[in-house]
């Protein structure tokens, strides 16, 4: 999955956007360490196999506290999307529309992740479209982005 072709240092949104940082309590550190290593990890219960995202201290299905992390393929489907014309963050002012997609991951219990859909912001998007992960590297953190397969 960590082939050169799905790694970029070019950010989709302009510089100055807020970047993620792990929670001080360590709950989501494995997820962000995973993205840094270009590996998509989703929390999975070691007791009953249920996936959950975002991470939690216990499994929402069986309440076991024995929850681990599973690597998934990084292939997903557009569950919903939106084209933003009126940004609210100052870094985005006058930067034109951009696309946000909510991606469903069939090999991780259909958990969902939010990211941008790379490419033309005016492109035609349909719910159900196939997408794959792109690693957007910043100085000390890596964002999870999405593109059409093989784009």
């Amino acid at each position: 999955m960590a082939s050169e072709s799905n790694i970029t240092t070019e950010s989709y949104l302009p510089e100055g956007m807020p970047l993620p940082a792990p929670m001080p309590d360590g709950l989501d550190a494995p997820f962000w360490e995973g993205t840094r290593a270009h590996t998509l990890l989703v929390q999975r219960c070691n007791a009953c196999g249920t996936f959950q995202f975002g991470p939690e201290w216990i499994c929402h299905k069986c309440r076991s506290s024995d929850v681990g992390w599973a690597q998934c393929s990084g292939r997903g489907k557009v569950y919903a999307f939106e084209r933003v014309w009126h940004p609210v963050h100052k870094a985005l002012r006058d930067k034109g529309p951009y696309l946000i997609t909510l991606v469903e991951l069939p090999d991780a219990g259909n958990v969902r992740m939010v990211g941008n859909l790379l490419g033309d912001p005016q492109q035609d998007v349909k719910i159900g479209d196939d997408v794959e992960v792109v690693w957007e590297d910043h100085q000390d953190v890596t964002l999870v982005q999405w593109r059409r397969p093989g784009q």
Partner: protein
Amino acid sequence: MTDYSIKDKVAIVGIGETRYYKAGQAPVSEFQLALEAIQKAVADAGLRIEDVDGFASYSDDRNDPTRLAGALGIPQIQFSNMHWGGGGGGMAGAVGNAAAAVVAGYAKHVVAFRALAQGQFGRFGQGHAGARVRGAAAYTAPYGLMSPAQMFAMRTQRFMHEHKISQEALCGISLASYKHAQENPRAVMYGRPFTRESYYNARWIVEPFRLFDCCQENDGAAAVVLTRADRARDLRHKPVYLMAAAQGTGYRQWVPAHNDPDYATSNFKTLAPRLYDMAGIGPKDVDVAQVYENFTGGVLMSLVEHGLCDADEAEAFCTNGNLEWPNGKLPLNTSGGNLAEAYMHGLELVLEGVRQLRGDSTCQVKDARVCLVAAGPMVSPVSNLLLRN
């Protein structure tokens, strides 16, 4: 139906509001606005300020009961309560909590209120200012998903996809509010005639929301007074009784990164059946509806989840003037609501429900007996009320 309910035991006996202003334009402080609305509601009921012994609010209202009681010289407070959750999800919940306090005997005359002066305290809908975001925001904000419009457009897009609903349904909901505001001199959008063309000529905010799918931001305050049904009959106005009140949220709603198992929902699927069950009526008994519009998409889902129309027929239901007074099948947001009267986090919708059942609305539905009030769609928790005269 359970015997343990508030049904018909409590009435709204007074309503009061300040003038409603565009955001940041109130000439006085938020606290002064709260004092004015509360005093007007108590006077409207024909009660004395000294009779008030409880306060309920929501959305972390900044005007706490201790300061209010001190400023108003209230002899004793017997109940004070804050409903959890941001936005307007707790609007009906605050009224329901006030009613519960009355039925429990904690207090006799409870005021539910909301005051907002965003000029004084900053606006809603702004982005994260910090360079780093943690927790649930870390999965959304770096991708430019920050504002309420951006959070709710995603759900709405999914709902419209699932039920093959076009922009026309959202337009129909927006038109109803703006048209009703033209009859209501209190409305901030009074005197701003509005057409289908105005709707479609407005810019996109975030697809599928255009400008007039989004609520206003306003300064002002609103309040209602609740008391026991047997006391209500001796007061100034015809009492408006609470048939039912519900609050809460469905299974794993608002877990991080839009992972709610049931995603395209207003979050009323568990509340609406409980509400009707408590009231002992069904959707067909609703004569007029006041449904919180943060965004039109939430109204669409709320109408469906309250059984007022079928999801797959929602587009036809929301168009062709069906939501418009006086000839529509179900007049909706008859004061103009959050979109066009004022964004008092929805409490103005409770006041309008009371007006409809007193026969005082500027878009009075003939022989209105039952009004639905729904609060805060697509958030968690949400809340709702059924009122009757």
